[in-house]
């Protein structure tokens, strides 16, 4: 300890490095509008694509089976439902991620205090 020539222990260095890193880190990357917009876009595209894919599949099936317009209408609704489900899953995942981030931040704060 007293010997200035002896290198500081690695554990001590690690601790100091972590503290310095935390201090240099911004409190939490602010959720910018751009990011929010991107997330909204991600959800919206699922719904639109669901509708389009449903209608497309229905249209092709109609051509095969000669049941024009019925299957397309039915598949349009199915596609809408599927798109909604994908959108719901996406938004739930985004919410989970946000929650995990919040928890991590809180834990980080607690760690800094302790």
């Amino acid at each position: 300890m007293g010997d200035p020539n002896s290198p500081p222990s690695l554990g001590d260095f690690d601790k100091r490095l972590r503290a310095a890193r935390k201090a240099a880190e911004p409190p939490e990357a602010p959720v910018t509008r751009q990011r929010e917009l991107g997330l909204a876009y991600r959800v919206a595209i699922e719904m639109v694509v669901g509708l389009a894919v449903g209608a497309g599949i229905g249209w092709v099936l109609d051509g095969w089976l000669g049941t024009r317009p019925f299957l397309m209408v039915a598949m349009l609704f199915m596609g809408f439902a599927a798109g909604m489900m994908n959108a719901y899953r996406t938004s739930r995942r985004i919410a989970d991620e946000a929650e995990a981030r919040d928890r991590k931040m809180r834990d980080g704060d607690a760690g800094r205090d302790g």
Partner: protein
Amino acid sequence: MAEQHSPLEQFQIRRLVPIEIGGVDASFTNSAVFMVIAVALVTLLMTYSMRGRAMVPGRLQSIAELGYEFIANMLQENVGSAGRKYFPFVFTLFMFILFSNLLGMIPYSFTPTSHIVVTFAMAFVVFVGVTVIGFARHGLHFLGYFVPKDVPWPLLFLLVPIEVLSYFIRPVSLSLRLFANMMAGHTMLKVFAGFVVALGVLGGWAPLAFVVALTGLEIGIAFLQAYVFTILTCLYLNDAVHLHH
């Protein structure tokens, strides 16, 4: 370079070396050139920067290591250790999309990812690959993925087709997202750049400032969309490997 100043001109495919194989037009196009450049740059970056294998990485080696760790962590977090095997594919996908997007930011260059053929081909490979992995790991149990749990059985007649449909939507939404972002962004850039010329020395400064801001934003989007494409690939992989939503 351009007599006609259409903002959509940048997306035009030109045949550089016309090749035709069995009636299929397989020409070497300007799009192909930029894909080759992207692959070459990624390969160069990865091999050249790692040739020293220094304990304390230099700048280039840091970039390579950062990319590696980023994707390795993404796979670990989203798929778990079962995802290790698929690292080369996911890493290649990420680097290719990222470099294609970034190459498009260079004036007069071409953005391969602004064409839905390119993005859909990648999404389709992911879709087929994930499905094959699902069947290979779980056999016919993989079909259970489409049957929601804890649902009264009459509803299954409605829910199973919806689940199947939502599974088939994935490659479309995956490819459309990347394609739409790249195309919309690049079109907007060119449109506002056109305003700069149209408004001349007096009024052109406002759109010019906007173009500068937009360029920064587009570089951000280039990273973000590469990230989104890759993380969704990881999530789909996770569904196939672990069989839950």
